[in-house]
């Protein structure tokens, strides 16, 4: 039973034990791990990073609680990054049971801004986020296609008042903001086919820069829009969120989960390679 035969026929229970140990140990420890970043995520980060303080971006939190696990890390990392750069954000939530969740997420992110933080070597002071100056939450209206087209002419048409009922003109931030032309980019984070509405009724008609945050399963279908230029960046699933968190030097839940995934994945690939090395060597030996 030389080394290769042993390699080839490890008892599967060792495989289970090793995989379980790796996952638990990595989960418990907080070793930082290098996740290489793809350029479709880097483009989104660079775009928001190069904006000047006071610029306005549009974040559409168009998903509902059941795809929250994969998409919340994206929302949290983008919005925190934007607010740290003193950008102003207009939020909407065009999915039926999304507004409550979106409202809660906005408040949680603004609380996390109250603590001074240091990202990528730059010290950011604590900030209190004020509704009306730093963000406006427009809330939900049915007929997403109509809402997107309406906002193309004027945000006040589909949303005369924001989610909390105050008319838009009472918000200092909204002075001079008519429609997408005054907004630097739109970032649509969605788990449903609502994305197609943003592409068909929004980007193709008013061609503002559009970036997408999608669940892992959907991401593959929207890569063609990346090559055709309709979309300038895509974050796909937990991997995309972890890459953005890494770029923003703000490791959160996605990055945590990615660490364990990475090592567990390595273990599986390692076992495949070992099995094959053992197999090829024994086959070569038996052929001699």
């Amino acid at each position: 039973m030389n080394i290769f035969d042993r390699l080839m026929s490890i008892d599967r229970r060792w495989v289970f034990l090793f995989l379980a140990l790796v996952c638990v140990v990595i989960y418990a420890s907080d070793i930082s791990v290098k996740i290489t970043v793809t350029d479709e995520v880097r483009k989104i980060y660079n775009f928001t990073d190069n904006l000047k303080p006071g610029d306005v971006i549009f974040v559409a939190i168009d998903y509902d609680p059941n795809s929250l696990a994969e998409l919340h890390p994206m929302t949290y990392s983008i919005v925190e990054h934007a607010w740290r750069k003193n950008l102003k954000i207009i939020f909407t939530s065009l999915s039926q049971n999304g507004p409550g969740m979106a409202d809660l997420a906005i408040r949680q992110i603004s609380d996390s801004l109250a603590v001074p933080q240091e990202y990528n070597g730059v010290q950011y002071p604590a900030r209190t986020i004020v509704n009306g100056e730093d963000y406006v939450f427009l809330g939900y209206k049915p007929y997403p296609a109509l809402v997107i087209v309406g906002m193309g002419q004027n945000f006040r048409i589909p949303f005369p008042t924001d989610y909390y009922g105050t008319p838009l003109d009472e918000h200092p931030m909204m002075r001079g903001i008519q429609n997408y032309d005054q907004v630097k980019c739109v970032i649509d984070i969605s788990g449903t086919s609502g994305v197609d509405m943003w592409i068909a009724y929004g980007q193709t008609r008013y061609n503002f820069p559009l970036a997408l945050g999608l669940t892992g399963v959907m991401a593959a279908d929207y890569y063609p829009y990346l090559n055709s230029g309709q979309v300038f960046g895509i974050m796909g699933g937990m991997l995309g969120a972890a890459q953005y968190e890494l770029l923003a030097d703000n490791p959160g839940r996605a990055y945590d989960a990615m660490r364990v995934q990475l090592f567990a994945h390595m273990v599986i690939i390692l076992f495949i390679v070992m099995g094959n090395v053992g197999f090829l060597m024994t086959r070569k030996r038996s052929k001699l």
Partner: protein
Amino acid sequence: MKRQLPLSLVFIFGVFMIIQYFVPHESSEWIFEFLLDWIYIIGIFALALGIWSLIRVSWDKIKYRKDNWQYSLVTLLGLFAMIVFGFDYLRNFQTAEGLQNFMFVHFFDYIMIPIQATMFSLLAFFIASAAYRAFRARSILASLLLIAALIVMLRFNPYFGPISPYLEKTASWLLNVPNLAAKRAIVIGVGLGIVATALKVILGIERAYLGKD
């Protein structure tokens, strides 16, 4: 009577359902919904047979002290406990109060969900052992399977994935071209297989399900 009538029943209802598919009119839709209700209600009544079989098999194990009989006791206790809680301690059968019964809800949340979620999570281990055991370059076919799986796995690996754009492009090509061709061929093949088998049943050629007397 015992075989002729069931066969003719299958034929009549089978042909009717085929014709009904092409008639969008409201009345055919109403009959279609009504027949689906039949299937649903027959299915519920049949559950009694299933529960009876579960009880009988467990009871046989307990009575004849077959090995692991004590666990059949746990099965029966679990079954009757849920039924008692589900009818709100057998107090009312009409309204669905039982579904909010404290013990019923807690049994569901703290017994069924953890066990089912953990059984599902065993897949993480079994994928690893299956990959280790079966991904051997035994033959050309096996090595094709191995290479394709490795490329796609590396693509979604957080570290190796984005190393070179070629890996990402190859993986998405594999997923969108050969995978699509294979899927399309199998779907067409399965479609024809389903129609052929269904036709055999309706024409009475396939009688295995009726058994013999």
